[in-house]
């Protein structure tokens, strides 16, 4: 099976930091967190929570008449990526071979919860609230909004969903099944996920402090991140500018516990090593790692050990950007891939926001402030419930010097 090289030609992002790549970049550069008090819904008997809530109603911006919040977020980001890739004027026949691979956890849950809440109060809400429940509605909404006719798939692998979808899309292009794919992840805040993580006693109401000595847990967020992926030859043929190359992608499973990571982060170690091997690179070649870094006690211990095993003694720049966005679940792997590519394009390492005193057990110190740096290869990692791990490696495209 011949494999074709895959590049990124467009990106789209919606999150607590804003509605565009530019807004996202400025917030990262200026170290401005997007966390605010949760306002999307009320939770009785719960503490006030800082979350990465999207500031305006995505339904007003998606161009969709109907759909769940997740669908609106997904389509907003997809439209951006499509346009960024220079595809907006692509004729319909050419769109038939463009597919969509999306990672989604919550799908239409925000509306389904409303249905459950009303029935429990003896109201019959009618069935309309349930219609858009499935995760695949967001994938199909993107395909329909942009008239795409290529292969579509929806993956749901908890916090690694976005990265997993990017892997799937990469493989479809590399194997020739598609020339172009939109890939990434989307999730809205829901009562299910907020109350769910609260019930696990892993939420920090004041927001996360990844890798900090006094970290107290994670914080949630929402959003969507979409990459336009393409074979390098296809991009060159249509004169599209490649933003970066996806040179390695790996997915593993700890097979250890339903929530706790394997001791020492063995699964993410293997994912990093496999992704690097695929890219023909070694750890010394990596200049920056965007860590999963949720800020829970357990994740940061395991991930810290994993990063040590792979990179010690010469550590690259490392930061977790979860205090900017919150943990956006299925969107995280994609949003953070975009952060890593922005770092590559702008030659800046984004801050590990929230870090005051690094955990003394870590043999590395995450990047405290957004810092200019020479970056040629970056990595983005995700770890999820159920023990899934994903590692994506991006490199600069040769000859491309200017940022965009």
């Amino acid at each position, binding site marked *: *099976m011949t494999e074709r090289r895959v590049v990124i030609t467009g990106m789209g992002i919606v999150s607590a930091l804003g509605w565009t790549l530019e807004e996202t970049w400025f917030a990262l550069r200026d170290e401005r967190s997007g966390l605010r008090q949760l306002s999307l819904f009320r939770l009785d*008997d719960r503490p006030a929570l800082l979350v990465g809530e999207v500031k305006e109603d995505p339904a007003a911006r998606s161009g969709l008449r109907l759909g769940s919040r997740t669908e609106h977020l997904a389509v907003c980001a997809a439209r951006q990526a499509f346009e960024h890739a220079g595809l907006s004027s692509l004729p319909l026949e050419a769109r*038939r071979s463009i597919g969509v691979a999306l990672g*989604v*956890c919550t799908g239409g849950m925000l509306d389904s*919860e409303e*249905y*459950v*809440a009303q*029935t*429990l*109060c*003896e109201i*019959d809400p009618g*069935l*309309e609230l*349930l*219609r858009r*429940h*499935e*995760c*695949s509605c967001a*994938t199909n909404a993107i*395909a329909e909004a942009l008239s795409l*006719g290529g*292969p*579509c*798939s*929806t*993956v*749901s*692998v*908890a916090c690694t969903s976005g990265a*997993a979808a990017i892997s*799937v899309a990469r*493989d479809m292009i590399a*194997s020739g099944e598609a020339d172009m794919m939109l890939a990434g992840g989307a999730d809205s805040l829901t*009562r*299910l996920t907020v*109350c*769910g*993580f609260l*019930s*696990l006693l892993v939420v920090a109401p004041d927001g996360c402090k990844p890798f900090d000595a006094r970290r107290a847990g994670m914080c949630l967020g929402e959003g969507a991140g979409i990459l336009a992926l393409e074979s390098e030859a296809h991009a060159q043929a249509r004169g599209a500018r490649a933003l970066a190359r996806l040179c390695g992608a790996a*997915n*593993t*499973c*700890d*097979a*250890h*516990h*339903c*929530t706790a990571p394997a001791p020492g982060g063995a*699964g993410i170690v*293997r994912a990093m090593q496999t992704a690097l091997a695929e890219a023909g690179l070694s750890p010394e070649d990596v200049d920056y790692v965007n860590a999963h870094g949720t800020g829970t006690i357990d994740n940061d211990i395991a991930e810290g050990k994993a990063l040590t095993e792979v990179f010690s003694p010469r550590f690259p720049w490392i930061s977790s950007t979860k205090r900017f966005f919150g943990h956006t679940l299925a969107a995280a792997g994609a949003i953070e891939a975009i952060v890593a590519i922005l770092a590559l394009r702008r030659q800046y390492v984004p801050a590990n926001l929230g870090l005051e005193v690094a955990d003394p057990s870590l043999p590395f110190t995450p990047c405290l402030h957004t810092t200019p740096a020479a970056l040629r290869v970056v990595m983005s990692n995700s770890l*999820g*419930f*159920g*023990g*899934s791990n994903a590692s994506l490696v991006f490199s600069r495209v040769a000859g491309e010097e200017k940022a965009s």
Partner: protein
Amino acid sequence: MIEARHLAVDVVGVGSIFPASAPEMRALPQELGGESYPTYACAAAPGKDLIAPGKLRRLGRAQQLALGATLCAAPDGALPPDVGERGAVCVGTGLGETGSTAAFLKSVLGPGQRFPRPSHFINSVHNALASEIAMELGFKGENCTVTHGAISFELALRRAMFLLLARRCDAAVVCGADEWTPYAVKFGQAHGWWRRSPDPLAPMAEASAQAGALPGEGAAAFLLARSGFVPDPIARIAACAARLGRGGARETGRVFLESLIGEAGAQWADIQLVVLGANGDARTDAAYSGVIEECLAVAGGNFACAVYKHATGEFCTASALGTALAVEAVHTGALPDRLRLLHAAPAERITRALVYHASPSGYHGACLVAS
């Protein structure tokens, strides 16, 4: 006939959990209207005789179905030991663990004191099925869960086939599983899938003129390996495809099936059995009839047709059970009991079976199984 054997994967084992053979009435809770629905139901704890009690106590029903079917598919000794990092798990599920999700939401959203249970939340992620399978078998390669409606199972199978053929893994478990819950029923009702009469499903039966089908539940799991990794596989999967019909007018079933057969380097003449996902709904039954008529006209008519949803009910991943029956057919050469023939029996021993289903929203899914 030159078959593209290098594109096939071996089936080392298959396991399945079917619902009861006749529909039963199940009452929805009061807050959902309290009505009763006929449904094809599995046991209350479908994993009970298959899964150790220490593990069973924490599993939701969809997890029990998936893990139970996997344990039937992967008995000890089927694979070399220490597949470990070279083992992948690909699960397709339409709705995942709706039971656990609903239980958690009720405790969070219901009036009065609320005591949400962490294990309900942990089980509510779609990949809770795949992660249990991985833990049971120690499979540490890719762990993927596809949730894409009616083609969830086929897309999961395609992912596994890709991983095997690309040598990213040596063995893979592919599983399709969905559970019946009151919320799953309401979801189906929102899409107009169900009828209320309790008569068993009679797919493609001439006398039947019903609109709608009946819900079901179940799971099937396949232990797959790269060609030659394990001696004496029980069958091969030669090709699998699933998509929204392509083209200006929606791609017809026949065109879709022919592209699949062509991909496997096979021809209609090689296929003795076509297994259809018809469910007794008059409109979709008619659509299947149309597809089969076209295929028979082209093929010169030498395959038998059979249906299976009278034994499974309708749910997103029912085609996994249909595929399991097709594997049994090519493995034994004869028709398994749960497959119901539509007309004449196959003229010769079954060595190739084509499993096909199409949904009203335009999805096709198909799989070519070979001995």
